[in-house]
């Protein structure tokens, strides 16, 4: 599938002046921020902050005439297919077929992206290896625990070799060990592969001080800097509560 030439030199994700409303209710209001290549950006916001709406817009499940979204330099409105081809997505809701094996889930997804079995085979192996679940490839998804299911979904999102990886609260419902492991895996993906990651969460302990942090509250960006800078001298949790309470 041909990708158009990137219109921007800086790869990664760029959002400018994005607004969206459900009828009279404004869900997002003039949201702007960028995630550079190889950066891990945590999108932190309480429930109802507009994170899921932002993800629906980023994945083109819904569209808005207000604002711009560039994925690896591709304008999502002008060249949606190139932008979608540069993006890997892990949705908040599980989207695996429980009765298929891990590998079959991944190969079905690869086919939806137009990859032949031959092209997909090596990519699937590499993705499973990267997420340390190669030994589970033949198991039915139903037989995996929550953490491994999530890893399977992340491995699946890597198959089209995206430049940008979007994860919408990927650790919901997981125990502390699985959460820590998945958070570490995705940080590694940024460090080794130059992948830009947007990680939506409402849990401050998933954010490292050196990560980029965008705080979203009531559809507006309240802060956008490294997590260490946003937190200042105080613990991030405390600072986050103060920010969202003041707004």
């Amino acid at each position, binding site marked *: 599938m041909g990708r158009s030439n990137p219109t921007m030199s800086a790869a990664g994700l760029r959002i400018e002046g994005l607004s969206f409303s459900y009828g009279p209710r404004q869900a997002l209001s003039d949201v702007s921020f960028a995630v550079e290549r190889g950066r891990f950006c945590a999108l932190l916001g309480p429930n109802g902050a507009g994170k899921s709406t932002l993800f629906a817009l980023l994945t083109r499940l819904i569209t808005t005439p207000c604002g711009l979204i560039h994925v690896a330099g591709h304008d999502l409105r002008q060249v949606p297919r*190139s932008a979608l081809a540069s993006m890997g997505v892990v*949705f908040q*809701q599980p*989207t695996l077929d429980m009765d298929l094996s891990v590998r079959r889930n991944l190969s079905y997804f690869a086919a*939806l992206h*137009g990859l*032949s079995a031959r092209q997909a085979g090596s990519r699937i192996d590499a993705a499973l290896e990267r997420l340390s679940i190669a030994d589970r490839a033949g198991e039915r998804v139903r037989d995996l625990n929550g953490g491994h299911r999530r890893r399977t979904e992340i491995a699946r999102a890597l198959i089209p070799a995206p430049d940008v990886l979007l994860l919408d609260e990927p650790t919901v419902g997981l125990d502390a060990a699985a959460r820590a492991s998945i958070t570490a895996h995705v940080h590694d993906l940024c460090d080794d592969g130059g992948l830009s990651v947007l990680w939506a969460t409402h849990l401050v302990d998933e954010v490292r001080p050196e990560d980029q942090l965008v705080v979203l509250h009531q559809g507006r960006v309240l802060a956008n800097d490294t997590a260490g800078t946003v937190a200042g001298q105080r613990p991030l949790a405390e600072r986050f509560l103060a920010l969202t309470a003041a707004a």
Partner: protein
Amino acid sequence: MSPYMIALQAIVLREAQRFISQRGRFIAALVRPLVWLLVFAAGFRAALGLSIIPPYQTYITYEIYIVPGLCGMIQLFNGMQSSLSLVYDREMGSMRLLLTSPLPRWWLLVCKLLAGTAISILQVYAFLGIAALFGITMPLQGYLLVLPVLVVSGLMVGALGLALSSIIRQLENFAGVMNFVIFPMFFLSSALYPLWKMAESSRLLYQICAVNPFTHGVELIRFALYGQINLAALGWTCLALAVFLGLALWGYDPARGLIRRKT
């Protein structure tokens, strides 16, 4: 193979696997028309006198008459069941995978439709096979000619289901679809009685039956089973397919349709 064909193959295979693994659904899909054919038709045979109308060249039994309508019913049920699975899929999230693929959305939805149609054709042939075992047979060329026709009629009712799944906010359960879509479409058609019979009872009902796209789908199947193409029925069925598909693509447009209206 092109990326388009790779996606089509994967979607059709997955739909087929899902159907085969749901044995209950397969049996229900066969038992339903067989009950109509072997019980209802047997009881009704004496009540309904049929004159010789095209494509039939001689007097026929009522069982023979309702076979095409039951083929249509199989496709109608299947189309609506697929649409329900889409609503369910969308809520469960796996439809999102389809919609965020970089392939064009219209193509992915057409793949879904083709997959559903392929399943319905399998069911129709299984039904025709069992009917033949009970001595209800069609001319041999009819079994061949009906194949392309079933593609058109299957796509038409499938597209209706797809349009409903995108436009109607929530298809709560199958009973609602039965009451408001399947039963009216089935009973207000030529599936169970020739339209001239209906005209004797009520002019208005006759006119409703005559514009019902399902009537044309059934007539298309009826003529094809006797080795003939009913061009008028083909034209109306294709027109209905175009309209329903247009509605479905409109409904699944990210700027409009149900997805936007957050529940």
